């Protein structure tokens, strides 16, 4: 205790003797020492901050929250309208199921159209008929030989006049071309039916937004099918045109023959 009192006295004595140093030390310590902590409750700055944050919060709730709620309400309205009026899932599913039903119907049609219709009874005609009804373009090459086996070849130059041979050859050519075209058209029609079934399959799995794309493809196929139909119609018209030309040629031949007979009768009478 004595030592402590003595040390204290010594310290105070040192301070008394070195006033300037003591003042400098106190100043530096007081200025560099950490400042007091402000209370959250008693400091006026915190109160202002709290009020301001509360104002910001209420403004966010009313302005942004209110605005977003209005937008949400409109969006819900649009969403509800789209789901119940524009794209109702139930009706979409129904439409997809209808596509399936239509597929079944056309598959049935395809099956019926494949029932064989062959009717010939003789070997040559049976072979020819088989080629004509084959729906196989690879058999087109056999058509001409089998046609000649059934309908005969163009007469040789000794047996018929050049004019008759020309008409006969042209008529055979038109008939054969029409038969070949019939094989082609049958094959094309089969491919169209196959493609149509594939397209229907795609439609069944499509979405309302992708169905129009498939429809566009189907439209393109329809245009193509129309072109093939036109081509078949053109061949039919060619056959009929040749038939008309033959009728005309018959009349012309008749007239020429009549003139020749008249001439021969005239020659005979002159001799007598």
């Amino acid at each position, binding site marked *: 205790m004595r030592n402590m009192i003595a040390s204290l006295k010594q310290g105070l004595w040192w301070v008394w003797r070195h006033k300037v140093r003591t003042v*400098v030390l106190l100043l530096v310590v007081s200025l*560099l020492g950490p400042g007091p902590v402000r209370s959250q409750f008693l400091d006026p700055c915190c109160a202002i901050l709290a009020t301001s944050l509360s104002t910001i919060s209420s*403004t966010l709730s009313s302005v942004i929250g209110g*605005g977003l709620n209005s937008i949400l309400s409109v969006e819900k309205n649009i969403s509800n309208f789209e789901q119940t009026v524009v794209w109702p899932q139930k009706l979409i599913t129904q439409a997809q199921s209808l596509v399936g*039903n239509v597929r079944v119907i056309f598959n049935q049609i395809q099956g*019926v159209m494949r029932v064989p219709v062959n009717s010939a009874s003789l070997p040559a005609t049976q072979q020819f008929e088989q080629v004509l009804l084959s729906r196989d373009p690879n058999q087109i090459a056999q058509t001409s030989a089998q046609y000649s086996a059934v*309908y005969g070849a163009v007469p040789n130059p000794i*047996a018929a006049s050049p004019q008759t041979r020309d008409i006969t050859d042209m008529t055979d050519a*038109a008939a054969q071309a029409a038969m070949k075209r019939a094989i082609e058209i049958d094959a094309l029609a089969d491919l169209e039916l196959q493609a149509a079934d594939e397209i229907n399959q795609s439609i069944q799995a499509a979405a309302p937004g992708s169905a129009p794309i498939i429809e566009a493809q189907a439209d393109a196929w329809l245009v193509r*099918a129309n072109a093939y139909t036109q081509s078949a119609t053109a061949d039919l018209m060619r056959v009929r045109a040749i038939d008309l030309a033959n009728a005309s040629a018959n009349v012309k031949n008749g007239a020429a023959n009549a003139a020749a007979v008249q001439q021969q009768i005239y020659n005979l009478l002159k001799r007598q």
Partner: protein
Amino acid sequence: MVFLTNMMFGLFLAAFFYAIVSARTRRQLLALTLAGALAVAVLGPPPAQAQGSLVAVIQSVLNVINGLIKTALNSINSVRTTVSNLYQQATWPVALINQARATVTQMIARYRGLMQNIFSIDLKSATLQNPAALETVMRNHQTGDFASLTNSFANTYGAVPAATAVNAADRTMMDMDDALAVDNLKTLKESDFADDLTLQAADNIEDAASQAAPGSAPFLTATAVVASIQSQALTQKMLAAELRQEAARLAHENALRKRGATLTGDVNAQILNLLQRK
């Protein structure tokens, strides 16, 4: 970091204390005082901000919320409301959608039965037994009675003669003509059956259209287009059959022409022979 700063600060104070206490001259003391002042200037806490600037910052935040953000939200709301109105009043008005469905239903009621009645009018006209049987089997839209068709055809038009009764060329041509005629009659039976199914498909599509929504209608239009392709393919098959038939008729006439030419040549040769003998 805070710990390190406190350590540095403690060391600095200890060194400063020691230097002040142990300074021997006034000059040293003056130097240490200046060093202390410099430390205070450098390490001292920054001056406190005025409360007024905090209020200004908060006010500016509020201004942004009430100005820019509020305007933007109002604009978005306005645009979405316009879009909603456009959908409901111009693009997909429910009244017009219902009206379209009602129109489809009314047209079904007005036309379908009428057209079915017209299409199912009995066209048969044969009066004798064999033609009547052929006509019935030709027009019954069935595909399971082709044998009956062949028999009825033979009963009406006769069978191909026996090989001894006619020359081979005629017999072949008769068989080919008959075959193509019967083929086409069979094809027409298939086609009639297909027509019935195609009409059924059309009815199904129309029924579905009477209940469709704008979003489900594309499925129906697409499948209707596909049905058109299939229908077109069937038309092509009929055209192909008609082509075969017309071609066969042309070939038949041409075969007669060939035979006529050959016979004429033969007759000419025989007349020539006769004249030469005289």
